[in-house]
């Protein structure tokens, strides 16, 4: 499926939907996501999850998919195109926080709804929250906070923490420290895009730490884990799900086995919606779904649930319908906080090998009904 040639894949499913009102016009969704370059795997999964939900519901939704190439200025241009030329009603799809911050404030100012399937920058969760902005994934700090909480409960008291030196990395370590109560054996920032971690691993070994927490998204995490496991340092490693998810786990291989990682979703999460989702995603695309695919799927289902209750032209009613979050999430219980970010359980998963495939299994729950630290600053109620 990754070889699908058409980027602006326009998918229209105007079959009978919800019974009455069959003549109504399709709702137009503009999806800006990352489909080329190094981060393409994430965007492809969000897109595929989203389109799968639309297809299954047979909802009258027209999705216009655009590739931001992981470049903020391209994303801004695409956003102008979707708003000015395509006249979309709802926007979604962005993977990376820096791109989200480039696009979302101005899209909201131009009167569009935005449903975030991945990025959750703190600026949009606190004082900068917005009635038309809904985050269906997590606030950026959430999974790191859960890792901190888990470290406490696992009896780890001297953790070494590291992340790349950019805002999301700084937020990650801040998020971890917000919940973690033990000592820090060391705190380290690496260069964004760094590929060799020998010097850092030597410092970890010498620090006398009892565990390692790291946030190194994409290829950085693969490199770190391979080198770490080959170094003979054998303290437990904790991290957010991003470095251990379906898309990249096969590339890390056995080096990731047994690693505990925090996530709001897992393929073995036991609820009927999730079981159906995992099965149908695999049947449709021939691969196991990732965290990102589940987020894309949930985002589409949230949208569909609102469409069943209200017309998008009636903005207040549509907004209220979105706020209810009246849909079956793949992660079980899901509701919105006052700042329209999720309140959800965050689990601890363990990387396991299932035949040839590496995947995750839930071990325990790190945080129950977890919101975020910024909701209090949000003026919405």
């Amino acid at each position: 499926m990754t070889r699908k040639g058409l980027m602006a894949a326009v998918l229209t499913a105007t079959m009978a939907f919800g019974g009455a009102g069959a003549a109504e016009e399709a709702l137009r969704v503009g999806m800006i996501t990352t489909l080329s370059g190094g981060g393409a795997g994430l965007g492809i999964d969000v897109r595929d999850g989203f389109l799968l939900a639309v297809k299954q519901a047979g909802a009258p939704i027209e999705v216009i998919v655009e590739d931001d190439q992981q470049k903020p200025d391209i994303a801004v241009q695409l956003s102008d195109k979707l708003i000015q030329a395509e006249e979309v009603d709802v926007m979604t799809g962005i993977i990376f926080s820096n791109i989200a911050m480039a696009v979302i404030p101005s899209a909201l100012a131009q009167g569009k709804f935005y449903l975030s399937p991945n990025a959750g920058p703190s600026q949009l969760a606190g004082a900068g929250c917005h009635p038309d902005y809904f985050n269906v994934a997590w606030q950026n700090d959430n999974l790191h906070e859960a890792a901190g909480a888990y470290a406490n409960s696992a009896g780890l008291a001297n953790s070494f923490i590291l992340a790349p030196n950019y805002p999301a990395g700084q937020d990650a370590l801040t998020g971890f420290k917000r919940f973690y109560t033990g000592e820090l054996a060391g705190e380290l920032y690496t260069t964004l895009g760094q590929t060799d971690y020998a010097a850092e691993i030597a410092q970890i070994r010498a620090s006398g730490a009892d565990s390692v927490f790291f946030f190194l998204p994409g290829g950085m995490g693969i490199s770190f884990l391979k080198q770490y496991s080959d170094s003979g340092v054998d303290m437990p490693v904790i991290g957010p799900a991003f470095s251990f998810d379906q898309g990249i786990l096969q590339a890390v291989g056995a080096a990731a086995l047994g690693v505990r990682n925090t996530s709001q979703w897992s393929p073995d999460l036991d609820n009927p919606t999730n079981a159906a989702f995992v099965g149908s995603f695999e049947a449709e695309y021939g691969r196991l779904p990732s965290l990102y695919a589940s987020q894309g799927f949930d985002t589409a289902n949230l949208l569909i649930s609102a469409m069943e209750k209200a017309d998008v032209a009636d903005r207040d009613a549509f907004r209220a319908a979105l706020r209810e979050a009246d849909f079956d999430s793949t992660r079980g219980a899901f509701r919105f906080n006052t700042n329209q970010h999720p309140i959800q359980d965050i689990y601890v998963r363990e990387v396991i090998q299932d035949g040839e495939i590496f995947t995750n299994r839930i071990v325990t729950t790190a945080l129950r009904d977890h919101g975020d630290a910024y909701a209090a600053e949000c003026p919405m109620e």
Partner: protein
Amino acid sequence: MSTVLLLEQLLNGLQFGVMLFLMAAGLTLIFGVMGLINLAHGSLYMIGAFAAASVAGFTGSFLLALMAALAAAAAAGALIEVTVIRRLYARDHLDQVLATFALILILSEGTRWLFGSFPLYLDVPAWLAGPVRLPGGIDYPRYRLAVIAVGLAVAGGLAWLIAGTRLGIRIRAGEADREMIAALGVDISRLYTLVFALGAALAGLAGALVGAIQSVQVGMGEPVLILAFVVIVIGGIGSIRGAFVGALLVGLTDTAGRVFMPILMQPLVGQQQAATVGSALASVAIYVLMALVLLVRPAGLYGRA
């Protein structure tokens, strides 16, 4: 910081330098002989890694994977040389930069089209996995020691090739005076194809070796390409010895920056900021080194002005 840790970091710096040398050697060889700036060298590195990952996936043999990386990168290099690169020798640097920039676009997206957008799996072989205890009590990964050995062997092999073989004599003659060796009846265009393929094979080998401990993904070549350029510019473009010295300098400087900058920054900006400020300074350390070297020696350490 203990002496053992210091020694270990020194070793890490050396090892990183040797890894860079594998990449830089081909780049500087190609520049030295043909006067060509090849931005697509990083793509050949990527091709080597992808070929190795594919073959390792099929056969399970790391040695076969290394051979495949060498072969695939050399073949891709020869193909590129014959179709595109040889038209660029007589051009100025601008045309070379642009044409090879175009090759990056084609090769990167072409690889993504063939292999998809997800990283591939390539791991160190079982017989090189895990650490080994060195004298002084340092636990050091066996694989990294092997990389150092391969790098030193390549450096020695290149030195021998250039100083002691017929091909080397032709290469040196070609560097010195192109018209003359053509007049002497050496098939210059075949020599160029050969040198380019050799440089490509070295990049492919580097990609495969490094791919086993890093991430095999589209775009993996660009960061290391820039580092390799820094290396050969410091060493003096065209000089293999310069590339070797430059690579070690860059490897040591980068490692030292990452280790010491945050510590050095603590008294200046305080505990809280030291980690971020130190890391920011560390990431530009090698560029500062390069600028300093060029200010003192505008043609690099071993370059001919």
